[in-house]
């Protein structure tokens, strides 16, 4: 069947600069660049180009430019190019259109409509370069009261404290599984976490055995519906355990790691046969209700001797606040909430772009709900899905989050350009692939440095903003909506965020 699609991107080669070195041909796993033996020159198949920009950046002569093609169709506000081409794709394949990364649709980004406060006159701002500025954060359940016994001059804590994990910055790496991302990318996340004193999340693909001893202390291991790689040793090698119920990019559906990505090492880590599809079911088949979730939470606590906090990750959907309250009452120590802009390695496009709600609204609503019920300190809240910069992190904290997960931002730090082809396994940047030829492009030493630099830079920026507000410890900003104002928001949006409009 002849395809009626137009190329989305155009490869423009500067014929003067190009010396036919064929570097671009080697860089492109999609086969965009071809060497025409007869004419002895490089030609391009624009249809195959994903605009990952690998060839453009690595062309030694700077001869390549990739740019989006203008829509070839008659302008039509109802039938955009994307709608027309999606129909063609469905008609030509009869399949569900897959995609990767987070939604690129124009849902309001509330971060960009929230502004921060700063001290003027009545209280001094604090200079983080000269004075202590503290970001240390504890994740886990806290008791309502500390029962203290005074034995002569000695103070004893009688209350049994639930396990908490400590992070030196409120930024953690979100769940990205080994298999979905390459070993090189996965181990870089692990190393950067250890370097900075934060945590990475293993995702549902298990934890490679050789990383457990060195990086288990900085790992949050995930238990998802596929239960890949879950055994007692896996659970106990980590600092915390997370039950993944939902993911912001694809609430309500499971995961799919295609057979070609299930290499022998991925297979052994996941405890499945190599070369088979790894399909995790949409629901956990042992969780059909809140009481089932509670049983799994306590099963995991039993398995880890009540020494590790248990987190539950849900996608932000319509009734998430009530659900989150239930999750806390069911015994979870941490609730992670993933918003609609959260990333994925593979998801049906229609789900990614239509299901869920923005994390800004979700985190604020769930924080207020937990406070109304008087159980906010029984859990920690982690915001995920569309955290793009340090100011997003600090705004999330002022809206009630204890910390943030970053996924897409970490990938970008490693080289990702959001070309959305993660599901193909052909990632030219060596991140989202099982092909050793591609993943070998990542040098874990350099990638670790890039990730660790990102966290360092964001942490410094957070300190600058905190100091400006006259606050020298992050815990004093948590849920402190006084320091936020909305700009260009509707009344109902301000109500849900619980913030005043600018000037109010």
């Amino acid at each position: 069947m002849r395809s009626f699609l137009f190329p989305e991107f155009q490869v423009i080669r500067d014929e003067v600069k190009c010396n036919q070195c064929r570097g671009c041909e080697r860089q492109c796993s999609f086969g965009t660049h071809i060497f025409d033996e007869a004419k002895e020159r490089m030609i391009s198949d624009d249809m195959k180009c994903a605009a990952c920009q690998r060839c453009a950046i690595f062309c030694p002569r700077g001869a390549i430019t990739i740019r989006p093609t203008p829509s070839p169709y008659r302008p039509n506000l109802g039938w955009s190019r994307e709608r027309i081409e999606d129909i063609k794709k469905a008609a030509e394949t009869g399949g569900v259109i897959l995609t990767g990364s987070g939604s690129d649709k124009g849902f309001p980004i509330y971060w960009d409509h929230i502004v921060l406060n700063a001290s003027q006159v009545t209280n001094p701002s604090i200079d983080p370069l000269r004075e202590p500025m503290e970001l240390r954060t504890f994740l886990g359940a806290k008791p309502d009261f500390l029962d203290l016994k005074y034995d002569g001059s000695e103070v004893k804590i009688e209350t049994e404290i639930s396990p908490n994990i400590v992070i030196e910055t409120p930024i953690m790496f979100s769940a990205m599984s080994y298999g979905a991302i390459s070993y090189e990318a996965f181990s870089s996340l692990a190393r950067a976490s250890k370097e900075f004193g934060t945590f990475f999340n293993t995702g549902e693909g298990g934890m490679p055995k050789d990383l457990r001893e060195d990086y288990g202390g900085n790992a949050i291991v995930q238990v998802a519906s596929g239960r890949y790689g879950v055994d007692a040793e896996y659970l106990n090698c980590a600092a915390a355990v997370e039950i993944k119920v939902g993911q912001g990019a694809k609430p309500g559906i499971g995961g799919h790691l295609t057979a070609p990505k299930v290499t022998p090492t991925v297979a052994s880590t996941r405890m499945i046969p190599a070369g088979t599809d790894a399909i995790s079911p949409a629901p956990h088949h042992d969780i059909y209700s809140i009481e089932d979730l509670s049983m799994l939470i306590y099963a995991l606590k039993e398995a880890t001797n009540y020494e590790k906090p248990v987190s539950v990750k849900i996608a932000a959907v319509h009734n998430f606040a009530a659900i989150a309250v239930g999750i806390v009452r069911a015994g979870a120590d941490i609730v992670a909430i993933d918003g609609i802009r959260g990333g994925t390695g593979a998801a049906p496009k229609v789900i990614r772009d239509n299901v869920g709600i923005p994390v800004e609204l979700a985190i604020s609503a769930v924080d207020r709900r937990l406070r109304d019920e008087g159980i906010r300190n029984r859990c920690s809240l982690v915001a995920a899905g569309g955290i793009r910069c340090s100011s997003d992190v600090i705004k999330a904290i002022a809206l009630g989050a204890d910390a943030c997960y970053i996924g897409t931002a970490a990938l970008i730090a490693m080289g990702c350009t959001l070309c959305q082809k993660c599901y193909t396994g052909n990632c030219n940047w060596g991140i989202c692939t099982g092909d050793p030829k591609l993943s070998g492009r990542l040098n874990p030493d350099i990638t670790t440095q890039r990730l660790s630099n990102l966290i360092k830079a964001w942490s410094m920026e957070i300190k600058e903003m905190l100091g400006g507000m006259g606050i020298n410890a992050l815990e004093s900003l948590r849920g402190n909506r006084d320091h936020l104002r909305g700009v260009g928001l509707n009344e109902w949006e301000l109500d849900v965020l619980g913030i005043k409009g600018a000037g109010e």
Partner: protein
Amino acid sequence: MVRRRRELYNKEICACSIFGAMNRDGDRFTGHDVITAIANMHVRGNGLGGGFAAYGIYPDYKDYYAFHIMFTSDSEETRRAAKCILDAYLCQNFDIVYDEEIPHDEACKVSHPPLAWRYFALPNKKGDEACLPDEDYVVKKVMWINSSMENTYVFSSGKNMGVFKGVGYPEEMADYFLLHDTYRGYIWTAHGRFPTNTQAWWGGAHPFGLLDWTVVHNGEISSYGTNRWFLEMYGYKCTLQTDTEVITYAVDLLMRRNKMPIDLASKVMAPPIWNAIDKMDAKKKKLYSTLRMVYGPLLMNGPFTIIIAHEGEMIGLGDRIRLRPLTAATRGPMMYLSSEEASIRLISPQLDEVWTPNGGEPVVAKLNSKKVVRDEIFPLS
């Protein structure tokens, strides 16, 4: 989910002068010297709030809760109506043994004085509330009155102590409430206020009191929103949108309900930095880390000094990076705390000791004992 309106309160921002004096032998003295001292810091206030708290002033009714209640309205009729509603409520929930209008000097020129009444009463607990401790019962009722009754505000609710405050310079309030020689107390604290906004309200002046705990405060708390939500989870209703209110409730939560000594409570409100905690020995490290982990939301961030008082104790405390002034001094049984040393020298030129406490280190004056807590809390053997 029912949509909840966001709150559109205006948080009050103010700077101030504070002063405290205590006779640690428990000998009672008039307010005269304290009034002289706070008046000396006239320019630290702007005439939009002043007040005093005095302990040991009601020896005849020392076993009864002394409620000072103001009925605020420009209309005499509204004030009387508010009082009728309150009287009915108090009669239902308390046994009142005596009540009267708080003595004052009508001739004093103060702006919009409210009707101020005092009641001496004991709890009359019924039904589900019968098992509540007296103090929790009183707190609950005070919270209810302050958040639900219009034009009615309880500004003092402890035993054998009282708060006197309003809109004006502190020395004007002293004249209005006849504080120079009417009462004798063993602790006096005083406050002169400099609010940046002009919405002066008699209830918004300092000291703030709950039971016999009072707080006078100089500063602005940047962590207000965080402190507030945490306290609200424990049943405190922050109706006044002032920093001092949250400090008062935090002190009540930590020191009364959680029974922490000031040495520890001060380490919750003004904790050591993590760098210092990390260098402590294992036991101390565990204690301080746990305190910060559990009570992190009660860290008072931003510039403040406070003088906390309750029965038998007066405490001075500054924020952990010392952004507001506090001077402490002793002379014989007397202990003084002040924003400025000059005020102390004015009433007691000769002093045994004068010092500037470090940030986050409480200065504690106790009856018949002197305990100045420097960096250590308890020696943890």
